[in-house]
């Protein structure tokens, strides 16, 4: 992983993001519906419409609009939503808290479930415990998130009343309440992720356990626990790093359905609201932010991968 390689990857990431920006911009413009009509209502006079379009810059050419937006965005100013006059940058900051917390919580829970389960299942390969865990992961892989969410709401919110069915309590009002409000959505996301992580890690550990050095470790009289944790886990963790990174990116903006279902005011609901209101100023900013986080996280994963696995570093 030398500096030149890294610079190349950074350049590629910049090109991808530029393309995302262009596509989002075009997409925002071809969405049917007139923003001015939506904001001003049917009684607006042509003068009012013209004034509104002038204020949001819609009377410039598309290329001018794009360049204006891009130069402002690069300096951190994402403009204001023409619908409610809210600053997009401020809204994104508010919306990022629940989304990021939900993502971190879901990843942590998923790993807490998947890593021990995968080690145990790989160690007891083919035994009942392994087959039960495999069956559970197949089932979870086939269950859409919203279906899991509905089941969890039914059991834990409607029947048991352990957690609220919807809503989000901001961190400012106490971490305990925040955690409680994020419990069901986080578990929903974590179960799906855990199923994927379990599969990859179990196969990785089984592969590692076949290696000669594991045989050597056993011959030296190491306990299964030491072999699993010290010798088998580390090499098998590598593919998982990629996957966890990928999912970080996917979860940032991909939890739209779950955020919507649990009424969490995150980036996903923000994007969905912008789509529904045809508010392209908000839409292009939120999509670009999500895409940028995705690209950066994946770049970071690639760098991390090189640090964790010396073989890759030398190969390049």
């Amino acid at each position, binding site marked *: 992983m030398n500096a030149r390689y890294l610079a190349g990857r950074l350049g*590629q990431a910049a*090109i*991808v*993001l530029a*393309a*995302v920006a262009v*596509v989002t911009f075009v*997409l925002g413009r*071809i*969405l*049917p519906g007139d923003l001015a009509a939506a904001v001003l209502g049917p009684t607006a006079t042509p003068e009012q419409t013209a004034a509104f379009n002038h204020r949001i810059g819609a009377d410039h050419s598309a290329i001018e609009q794009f360049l204006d937006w891009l130069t402002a965005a690069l300096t951190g100013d994402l403009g204001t939503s023409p619908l409610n006059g809210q600053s997009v940058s401020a809204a994104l900051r508010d919306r990022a808290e629940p989304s990021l917390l939900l993502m971190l919580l879901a990843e942590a829970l998923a790993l807490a479930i998947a890593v021990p389960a995968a080690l145990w299942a790989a160690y007891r390969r083919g035994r009942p415990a392994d*087959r039960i865990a495999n069956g559970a992961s*197949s*089932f979870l*892989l*086939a*269950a*859409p*998130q*919203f*279906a899991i969410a*509905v*089941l969890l*709401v*039914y059991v834990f919110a*409607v029947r048991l009343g352990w957690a609220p069915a919807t809503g989000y309590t901001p961190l400012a009002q106490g971490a305990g309440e925040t955690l409680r409000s994020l419990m069901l959505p986080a578990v929903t996301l974590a179960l799906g992720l855990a199923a994927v992580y379990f599969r990859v890690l179990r196969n990785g550990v089984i592969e590692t356990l076949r290696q000669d050095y594991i045989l050597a470790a056993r011959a030296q009289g190491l306990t299964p626990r030491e072999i699993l944790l010290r010798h088998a886990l580390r090499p098998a963790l590598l593919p998982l790093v990629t996957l966890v990174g990928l999912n970080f990116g996917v979860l*940032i*903006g*991909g939890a*739209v*359905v779950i955020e*919507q*279902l649990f009424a969490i005011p995150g980036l*996903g609901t923000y*994007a*969905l609201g912008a*789509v*529904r209101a*045809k508010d392209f100023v908000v*839409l292009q900013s*939120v*999509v670009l932010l*999500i*895409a940028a986080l*995705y*690209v950066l996280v994946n770049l970071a994963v690639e760098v991390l991968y090189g640090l964790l696995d010396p073989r890759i570093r030398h190969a390049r």
Partner: protein
Amino acid sequence: MPVDTLVPTAEATHRDKVTTRRARPGAATAAASVVLGTIVLAALLAPVLPLENPEHTDVSALSAGFGAEHPLGTDALGRDTLARIVYGARVSLTVGLGATAIGAVVGTLLGMIAGLSTGWAQAIVMRLADVLLAFPALVLALAVIGAVGPSATSVTLVVGVLFVPGFVRVVQAPVLSLAQREFVLACRAMGMSATRLMLREILPNITGLVVTYAVTMFGLGVMIEGGLGFLGMSVPPPAPTWGGMISEGRQVLAEHPVVTLTPTAVLVLVVLCANVLGDRLTAVFDSRGAML
């Protein structure tokens, strides 16, 4: 206890054997094929099957449980759940199959081009795939579907486009290594055209891979259609979609959970069967690959 459960009948012992036997891949694969086949057949034959009109409301049976008149019960508006599931399957399967076909054909073609050509063609295809992958897929889908209006066609097209980069990635890597093999070099040396080389020499070698991936993507397509239907962004109501049924059922979740749980179970079952078949195909093609 009724006598017939104490004395095992021939049928019961047979069933016991099937369920207690160590789950071999064969049994699971057969079961998955039967389930998927039944649902596909039911969806195809829906107009001629003795089903109720899926949009007919029976006010005398609101949120009814399982029974003789409505085998799988009714929803909160008294609409027959079985009929809605079968008609909903038409939407789910159309989207699942259609989107997978679009993704497989376009993705495989682009993947082969990216794998065989070097330089700019490869760079363009792979960067395009990166761009599409970096997009928040669901937001993109919702924006486009919102723009053109939700229908089976628009949902299929959008999901199909979202499937393309995955197929490109799956195809490109093996084609890249196939391109170095002697038989490809020989074909090129003999002056075979690029099109013929792709279709006659490369394609047969990656078909297994594509089919395996396609089966899994079919399940994902059904799942995504469910998610869009859940958000009200698939075929609009009152036409039945599985996701829409699950979403509508939530209003009576506390009193009548079955209204939501039945379509949920069917959706999970279909995706599960697709995954089982996908896993089986992976195993088949893996062992074949190992022999090479």
